[in-house]
């Protein structure tokens, strides 16, 4: 029987296998590096969004509006979150705060938590229970929404929390399942517009006639779509009531 060279890790490499091993090793190192570079350069920039733990705990007071998802129109802010800002809110993990905010609709409330920030988009992750959101003394009128008409936009529906920095990347098709779990949990959906609308790149998404985002839209999360929507300005935040029948997936 012909003796074939046999590689054993702890013994010297057989002469007949040396060239083969060098070629394979070099190919793997160069190939893996090239593949990593090629794949990495085709990925979109995840942006600068992040939990801003460096800001410390943020506590602000404002009036709660249900769109039907809750917004906080800040009336007494701080250096980071000045009065006049409109904040979307989330609980820890993949949970929204509708259950805590609904009883406070139209009332002043004190919200406390950590800020997530990506460009013009910010969201407050509340502390647990009443430490995160509780009624405050006083009364303030909820700012009346300002209708901006019906628009046709192109862009992508994301979950606002991951997009604001809870995950990087927090958008795109690879993030779709995570985004849908967040949205099912009650985290506000956010539309990233291809170009600014009235100066805003990010718009909160609701359904028509004061409903939550319709189920049909969940199937289009993470895809680039065009959609018609009635847009209104709530405080300094744009809210778009999408018409699911007009959704089209772009090329």
């Amino acid at each position: 029987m012909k003796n074939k060279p046999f590689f054993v890790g702890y013994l010297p490499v057989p002469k007949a296998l040396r060239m083969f091993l060098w070629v394979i090793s070099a190919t793997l190192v160069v190939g893996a590096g090239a593949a990593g570079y090629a794949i990495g350069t085709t990925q979109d920039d995840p942006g600068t969004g992040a939990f801003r733990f460096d800001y410390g705990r943020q506590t602000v007071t404002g009036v709660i509006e249900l769109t039907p998802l809750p917004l906080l129109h800040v009336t007494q802010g701080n250096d980071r979150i000045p009065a006049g800002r409109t904040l979307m809110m989330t609980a820890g993990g993949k949970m929204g705060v509708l259950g805590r905010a609904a009883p406070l609709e139209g009332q002043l409330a004190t919200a406390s938590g950590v800020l997530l920030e990506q460009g013009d988009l910010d969201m407050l992750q509340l502390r647990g229970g009443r430490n995160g959101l509780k009624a405050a003394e006083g009364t303030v009128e909820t700012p009346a929404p300002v209708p901006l008409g019906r628009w046709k936009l192109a862009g992508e529906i994301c979950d606002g929390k991951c997009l604001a920095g809870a995950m990087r990347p927090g958008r795109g098709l690879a993030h779709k399942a995570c985004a849908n779990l967040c949205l099912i949990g009650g985290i506000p959906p956010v539309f990233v517009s291809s170009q600014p609308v009235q100066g805003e790149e990010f718009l909160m998404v609701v359904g028509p006639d004061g409903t939550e985002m319709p189920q049909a839209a969940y199937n289009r999360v993470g895809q680039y779509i065009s959609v018609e929507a009635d847009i209104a300005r709530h405080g300094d935040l744009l809210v778009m009531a999408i018409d699911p029948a007009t959704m089209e997936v772009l090329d």
Partner: protein
Amino acid sequence: MSGGETIVWLVQIWLTAGAVVAALFLIVGIDRIDDDARGAYVFRPLLVPAVLLIWPLVLWRWFVLETGRDQWAARHRPPRRQHLVAAVGMALLIGFSLIAGLSVRQIWPGDIAPQQLTPPAGTED
């Protein structure tokens, strides 16, 4: 039924069949084909998750061992013969998947501007 619902339905069927096989195999079958398993029960629940996933293979091996068709020495020969083909095939599949994924990827519609279809009520000229 949407694509997602169909996938969930198929997964439910697969797991249900796996649960039936797991119950039969771990209560009846394993004693018949594995001497070492006789009288040992605590480890059996640990096998349930795997049986749920690969129940066709469990059924096949049960059948082979039960009917005495098993040739243990020959069991690994066919996979060894196919290792080179499988390795090259999988490497090509990775490359193909990457190229296919990139080729069907959408392009960000940065050139599409927002378009106002109708002004807000009460402001029409």
